[in-house]
């Protein structure tokens, strides 16, 4: 199956004009499969960590959103233990005009602004609401243990 022009273009651009703090490299044997790493945003509990993700572009991309998952353990109310991400643009608010780049930027933004009101990991969200400094500390701790570069 030939790779759609759009994917080729996106990939080329990701390589040519990388977003600071974000890296996405396609696998040689499957150009729809990307290894992604995102630097934790500054002034966030994730600062200093480099988070690995996997990204897969399904067959009907860009009609359907890419599938993305954290590989690095992360303490975040919108990311569950399996690394799944709760983000509207990855679900109902997906638009074919969105791209890999924009999605990854959204994820980076999500790290900087957790949203415990729309949780995926309920226990984390609970703690985030009840004991935000504690939660942030744990997040920082996890970052150091799991996401040290």
């Amino acid at each position, binding site marked *: 199956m030939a790779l*759609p*022009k*759009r994917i080729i*273009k*996106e990939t080329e651009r990701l390589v040519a004009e990388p977003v600071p703090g974000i890296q996405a490299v396609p696998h040689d044997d499957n150009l729809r499969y990307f290894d992604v790493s995102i630097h934790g945003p500054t002034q966030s509990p994730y600062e200093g960590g480099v988070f690995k993700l996997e990204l897969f572009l399904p067959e*009907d991309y*860009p*009609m359907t959103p890419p599938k993305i998952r954290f590989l690095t353990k992360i303490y975040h109310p919108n990311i569950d233990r399996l690394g799944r991400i709760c983000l509207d643009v990855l679900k109902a*608010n997906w*638009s*074919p*005009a969105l791209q890999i780049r924009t999605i990854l930027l959204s994820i980076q933004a999500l790290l900087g602004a957790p949203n415990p009101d729309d949780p995926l990991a309920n226990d984390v969200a609970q703690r985030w609401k009840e004991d935000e400094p504690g939660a942030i500390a744990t997040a920082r701790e996890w970052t150091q243990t799991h996401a040290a570069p």
Partner: protein
Amino acid sequence: MEDTNPHPPKRRRFFAVSSPSPPREESDPILPSTPQQQQREPHDHYYHTDPTSNTTPFADQDEEDDDVAFDDPAEDGIKIEVDTETETAEIKDLSLRLDGAMLESVVGELSSDVLRRLDDISGGNIERAINMYLDGSWKDIKPSSPAIPKPKPVKQSPFDTLFTQNNSTNANTNNNKRKSPAGISQTSTAAAAAPTPSSSSDEETAQRLDRMPLERYIGSFGAEGWAIRSGSNLLSHGEEVIIDRQQPQQVQKTVRRGKGRPTAVVSQPAAKRKDIVVRFSNSRGEEIGRLPHETAQFVSTLMDQKICSFKGVCVYAPEVLRSNDTIFLQLKCFMLRGTFAPRVLRLTDTNRSTGLFETKETEEEKALRLRQTSLVKLFNEIRLFPTSSGQDSKAKREGLLQVAEMAEEKEKEEAARGNNTPVRDEEEPQEGKELEQDQLDQLYRKAQTFDFNSPEAGPAETFTMNLRRYQKQALHWMLNKERDKKNEGQTESMHPLWEEYTWPVKDENDKELPVVENQEKFYVNPYSGELSLKFPVQEQNCLGGILADEMGLGKTIEMLSLIHTNRNEPEVTSGSDSKPFNLPRLPKNSDTVEPAPYTTLVVAPMSLLSQWASEAEAASKPGTLRTIIYYGSDKSLDLRAQCSAANSHNAPNVIITSYGVVLSEYTQIANTASGSRATSGGLFSIQFFRIILDEAHNIKNRQSKTAKACYELDALHRWVLTGTPIVNRLEDLFSLVRFLRVEPWSNFAYWRTFITVPFESKDFLRALDVVQTVLEPLVMRRTKDMKQPDGTPLVPLPPKTIVIEEIELSKAERAVYDFIYTFVKRSFAENVEAGSVMKSYTTIFAQILRLRQSCCHPTLVRKKEVVADEVEAEAAEAEAKGLTDNMDLQALIDKFTSQENDGNNGEAVNNNYGAHVLQQIKEEAENECPICSNEPIEEMTVTACYHMACKKCLLSVIEYAKGKGEQARCFNCREAIDEKELYEVVKHETEGVAGGGGGGGLLTAFKENNNVPVPEFSLRRLAANKSSAKIDALIANLKRLRREKPGMKSVVFSQFTSFLNLIEPALARERIQFVRFDGGMSQQQRAVVLNKFKTHNSEAAGGLVLLISLKAGGVGLNLTEAKRVFMMDPWWSFAVEAQAIDRIHRMGQTEEVVVHRFVVKGSVEERMVHKIQERKKFIASSLGMMSAEEKRAQRIEDIKDLLS
């Protein structure tokens, strides 16, 4: 058993009333003896009751007379003229003393020598002369003249027999009869000048012939005759026996006249009975018995056809002989000199002069067959084997006999089937098996051994084009052929069909035979029964050939260079045609064809006429080549007057006409009572300098009227151009060879014996070998993929890319398609079950046609005129109605069209788009599509919220949401969007644009810095533009092309002219300029269109699209102006599409050619392309030239595949 055909038609007509009709249903001499024949024999015997007078006229056989060889003018080629003249003179002299007519009426036809001698010895007393003649005593008297006269034992004309009663007119009749054939033979010699060997070699042959004794011993064999009479001492050991033939009717007559036994012994050409009785008599002339059947079979033929004479010696006979006793004989066989006279003329006669419109071939074929089998049998009997021949002679002989048997069986079958019903043009069954592809390949490979170092020739100065190297080589080759120069370095090899025999030096008793100087050998062609004393060289006696270069190598240009370079030069024309051209002759009212020494006739398919004309013009310096198209209303010219030699300054150099014109003139002449060529004043009244048949596979069927018509065209040089000399049968080649008049291959009997029959009896290699020897000197063929020695291709063509574009049908279209598909599938399955597939072929075919059309455009299904260009389906129109009238389908189509109309071309687009919106659109137009990243956006389409993307992308967004049952939203602002609220951005060309209409755009932007408002683009509701998926795809492609390569010309092929009708408005709407070319246009219209397409200045006026129907434009046209090809619908075999593509991708193409083939995904089209076309890749028959029946069977197979 003499065949009647060598006699020219005039004579036949003269005697038409009284001559007996040629025996057809009579028992065949070679067949085992029939009861009928057995019954007849006692009668024969009855007529021979006078044994005493039964003295043989030629007791002394060694004393042969000079005349034997020449007694049948029609048969004896070159000597005729002299012979006839002296004879006529002689008879005049004689009339003073002896009444020759009277004499001949009594004893039968006499040669002049005999007459003279009889006159001499009888002293003018007719009674004495008759008696002396009959008792043979005249021969014992020493003649005063050196010639040794002798009655003519071998031949009597049937006409004499018929006219014997009429004494008073007999002499005249006789004279006329003997004169006319000779006279006519002479004319036909002139007419047939081209293929006959030059006169010098004729003389040589004649001299050689003169040196030969009148008869020469070749061998002997034993035979067991049976006695038909009883008595003692009738025959004893060692006694000479006279072998002769008898003729029942003749016997009857002579007996009635009381003049004893019959004199002339040999049967007559048109004799009613074809008996094979050979009797023998003792030296006293008493008839003793008959030869056994098997021996008589061939002996009778050999004697009848005057090939041999026989003398017998009795080896053993009972002293007291009784009927039916066996008598052992030894038969000595002598070849007669006349046999060795060249038969070329005869062959040409039969091929050419048997009346313009007669199709008599069977009699001739039969005589030939008898002759050849008899010879082979004789050689077997006397154990004479060739000293040199191409093949294992034993196997060869067996082969020949086998052929003869097959022929007989076939004949019987045909007889059983009754008369051959006349066959219609194109419909007739074709003979011969089809060639398998590998056989065809092999054949071509052999014919393609082209020597790249062969000499070149430069064209004449008047020719303006530059020839490539291989084209110069072709020119050299063609010039050589026309000037009849043998290729240098070619050794004279024996004609492959001939065998060399050595004359025996000792007779049956081991005695030395007289030696003939310089004649140790003779040559036999066992395939035709021809004999010759001259070494038979494989002759290149056809002054033309087959130019079979593959399509696109420039056959036309090569031919034009020949036309320029070999123009009527004296040595060419006068060498082979004795008629001086400069003699002012009256063209009118003369019955012969008028030579046109300056004119080349080009016969081509109608669609190519104007192309020939324009290429001829382009290749010539102005004024050096007068070219006319002889077609339609332009035909009023009197060609005869125009082209005659007298009109040398204004005679057209090239006349271009179509096969249709040739056929219609032919039919016209055939329908007039006289069948005279001359009075017509048309193509057939002229002997052209040269004829060129373009796309000559048009005459591949030798039985088609077109082919027959072309054979009759007269010319000095004959050429055929074709990319496929053999389409699928070896007979295809025959037809070309026949047209070229290549002797002896143009004789179908010959061809059959040597090629068809071996081929059909699985002796492929032999057949193909022979075909190769036929082809080699005749054909020049190069293919596009041939490489020159340095590895470069012959014709470097720019690359060609074929892209299959898969088309997704819209939902509404799909619904229509699916409906028809289910319907067709069910109906086909029903037919298969009922076994009525072939019967309801037309219905099924029409339904499949509908199905294919629904892939193109749903409304095509409804249109009545759709099938107009699909010949096969015409009849099915009515039946197909059942399908289209179906209510459900109607509803589906209506649904489709309602959507179409919904958009209501001119419906108002809300005017609330402000100028800034337009600005935004303009800016966005430069961007890439946010969905597919294409840059720029394809078929820019705007949502109601002013966001722009490719039309395809937007539609798929909506489609996708629908599929999930969601509301589709704008990719940009997430506004709800709807299919009906999409607007297409129509960019307006700033140049003047042809083809208006369409376009209900209301929103228009203007270039502001321009006083005259020029619309830049407008929006049009997308739904209004809804045509069909295929048309959309085409338009998208064409628009992209316009954007990327402005000014590029492209060609759009479709099988359905009605589909072209639908494409036209779509192009007009997009302001894409187009012209159209289809089968419904007249020749003039076509020329105009082609010319417009060719000369259209794309630089200034933008690109141009040529809409063309596959059938009308698939062959021959040259459309190298275009660089893009769009194939709208697949054909059953790709070869047809490839042909069409090659109109563009051919010599002269300067740029890469990109071909887009549109195929609807998941439809019969897909299966056609991937299954059926794939399968047919290797079938040469794909050009649709099979018989109707075969075609159908194959189509059914295809349909099965389609619906599987």
